């Protein structure tokens, strides 16, 4: 009886070990491109219907290189974790769409291939949108090629403004006056919400006041959020809520998604919003069609306040077997034809200045102002992995929330935020 019982047990154990071994080795051979296939990760949701676009790109790519294109879609919220896991397991794709604020981090970790030489030899070199190019450059080398981006500017309710005879503000004092006017005449709406959990909205006011988030210092960086100009920007932005009542306590915990919900519900009259949001808002609430308009973010005494360009690079991973093939794909994607097609389908702007300038000439009140903002006053945040850490820690959002909820004064909050940032830059 024992003779019969035992072998199966051993068999099971053996089978289990074999199975484990298979899965372990299976993990190691993720997406190699040794069979003439290029694996590409693209973020899901930017283009609501990305399938046909990549069918077309794939056909063109095969025609050009003979290699097959394998596009895999990654949802934005999981993307960073997925990249990290892939790096740990050695299963990164050949080419990937990488959020502009991640490129420096991945490059610093040694996961990306240096594209400087390829780019210098290509024709689009001088046409890259400067802020996106800065974001893709780390230690003097280009790791991310600008693909597309969006920008934040002023979005307002055209119908409400027309009803009360208001026009888009062109300076900070005007912005404040328009907001106060709206507060009086439209008590049911938030005139200008001040978001507690949106760092990029704040950035525009820091830059608009002539301040910086951080400045290069020696080998590293130094926080500049406690400097006089930056503090003035923070003070103006938060005072709209704390002194002039153009916001509500509710917005203290709002992020940009909450803002879009507020705009969609018709509860917000004017706000700093992304160039990609009007389409979403009108899509969710068709009766708002034609009632929204945009304007570039006014500067403190006229002109424009710089605003953050958020978008994507295309980068090549070190694990790509055929780096030339990977570059061919990037060149195809950033060519005028496909860059414009992608922009048209997604509502973002291409990463090429010439194409953005062309968009700025259009008459569409929801396109031209954003394009102008992007071409004339687009900026990016400090290009260092330490700044990614600061964003993860939400240092600047914490600062704004503490001011808005009355826990700290502007002076105290900015001073503490600067110290916290310097701590992150330090290690």
């Amino acid at each position, binding site marked *: 009886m*024992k003779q019969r019982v035992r072998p199966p*047990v051993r068999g099971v154990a053996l089978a289990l070990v074999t199975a484990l071994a298979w899965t372990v080795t299976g993990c190691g051979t993720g997406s190699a491109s040794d069979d003439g296939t290029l694996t590409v990760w693209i973020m899901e949701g930017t283009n609501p219907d990305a399938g046909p676009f990549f069918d077309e790109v794939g056909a063109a790519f095969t025609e050009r290189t003979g290699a097959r294109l394998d596009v895999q879609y990654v949802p934005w919220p999981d993307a960073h974790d997925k990249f990290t896991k892939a790096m740990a397991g050695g299963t990164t794709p050949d080419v990937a769409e990488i959020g502009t604020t991640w490129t420096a981090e991945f490059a610093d*970790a040694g*996961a990306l291939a240096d594209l400087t030489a390829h780019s210098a030899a290509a024709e689009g070199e001088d046409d890259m949108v400067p802020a996106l190019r800065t974001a893709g450059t780390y230690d003097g080398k280009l790791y991310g090629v600008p693909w597309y981006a969006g920008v934040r500017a002023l979005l307002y309710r055209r119908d409400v403004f027309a009803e009360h005879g208001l026009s888009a503000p062109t300076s900070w004092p005007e912005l404040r006056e328009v907001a106060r006017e709206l507060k009086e005449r439209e008590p049911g709406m938030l005139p200008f919400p001040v978001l507690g*959990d949106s760092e990029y909205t704040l950035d525009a006011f820091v830059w608009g006041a002539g301040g910086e988030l951080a400045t290069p210092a020696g080998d590293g960086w130094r926080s500049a959020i406690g400097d006089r100009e930056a503090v003035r920007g923070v003070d103006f932005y938060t005072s709209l809520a704390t002194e002039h009542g153009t916001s509500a306590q*509710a917005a*203290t915990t709002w992020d940009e998604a909450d803002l879009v919900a507020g705009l969609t519900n018709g509860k917000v009259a004017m706000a700093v919003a992304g160039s990609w949001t009007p389409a979403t808002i009108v899509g969710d609430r068709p009766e708002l069609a034609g009632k929204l308009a945009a304007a570039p973010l006014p500067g403190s005494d006229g002109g424009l306040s710089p605003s953050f360009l958020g978008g994507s690079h295309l980068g090549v991973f070190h694990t790509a077997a055929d780096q030339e093939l990977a570059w061919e794909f990037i060149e195809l994607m950033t060519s005028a034809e496909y860059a414009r097609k992608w922009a048209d389908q997604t509502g973002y702007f291409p990463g090429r200045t010439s194409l953005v300038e062309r968009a700025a000439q259009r008459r569409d009140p929801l396109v031209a102002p954003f394009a102008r903002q992007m071409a004339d006053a687009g900026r990016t945040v400090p290009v260092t992995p330490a700044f990614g850490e600061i964003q*993860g*820690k*939400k240092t600047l959002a914490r600062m704004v929330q503490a001011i808005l909820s009355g826990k700290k004064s502007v002076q105290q909050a900015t001073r503490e935020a600067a110290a916290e940032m310097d701590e992150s830059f330090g290690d």
Partner: protein
Amino acid sequence: MATEAPDPTEVPDPPAAPEAPAAPEPPGASEPRGATGAPGTTEAPGAVQAPGPGAGGTSGAGRAPGAGRSPHRAAAPGTATAPARAASARERAARAARRRRRSRPWLLLAPALLAVGGLLLWPLGRVVWMSFQDYGLREIVGGSTNYNGGANYAEILGQSYLWTTVLPNTVLFAAVCVALTVVLGTLVALLLLRLPPLWRTLTASTIMMAWAMPAVTGTYVWVWLFDPFGGAVVQGLGSLGLVDPAATNWFTGRLTFYAIATVNVVHHSFPFVAVTVFAGLLTIPRELHEAGVVDGANAWQRFWSITVPAIKPVFLVVVILSTIWDFKVFVQLYLMPGGNGANPAVLNLGVWSYVESFAQRQYGMGAAIAVLLTLLLLAITVVYIRALFAEGREKGESL
């Protein structure tokens, strides 16, 4: 009684080993509280791991080896005329058989141990290993190590943020949630016991819905209810003139934030307690309560001197499980406005660990926080398990 009966089917009896009647105790047979369900299952692993002779349950353990040895000794004089070699050969065979018997449970456990080891212990070990390093993306990509001794622990334990914010948040929140969950769950269980079948079914299925709701969905519902901008609660109170909706945001205050989180967590977890305690209540013989009534005890007295002692192990189990769950609450806090790190006053250990490791990509730091959380939970669990076993022994003796 079951403990005294040797089970003939338990072990195949090889002819070469006459001492086989020394059958191990049937696992669980010495376990006196099989009727209470859940507590029985918590003890089962102990009984399964060492069913061999001499390692059985408490009451019969001493008997089994003795019973095993005596037939052997009795046989020895009978074979005195045979050569001594036969006896020693038999001794060897017996030892081999015993060895086989001892190794068999491990063999049977091997798949489970492999799975647990591979999926749980190994990652756990990795986390500990990582917690002694400055481990970032660069280390992940390069596969290199970067030991910094106990610097992560020193930094965590050395900052006042842990002692004034995170730890109090974690411990107090868990304590309040456990207390409210158990009290509410018990009250609902008592209610269920008194309801007629139709209403009992209706009530039970209604509360099950709260339990079945995914934590993410439930959290969004509560956030939406308490939303300062159009949420039903704030608007309702605002229309009564009790609060000013424009100047109210309960998510920014530490106490109000946790009050909302507590409502959410208690609402989500009391059904489990209610159902478990209800199952325990069903096992209490009716006569006990009848005797109490005859003796003139009121409902309060009967609850404390009959119901509670009778199902104390059930309470222990729900308290342990609730404590563990409520200590590591994550989703319900992280998804609330400000809970993702934008409001440092409201983080607990779990969210802090996540914010440190995944949002800031300091995996070593996050790992160290996770290790501390695990140690804290282990300490609490050990205390409870000991209390549970002490309870079990007490009960075993009294029976």
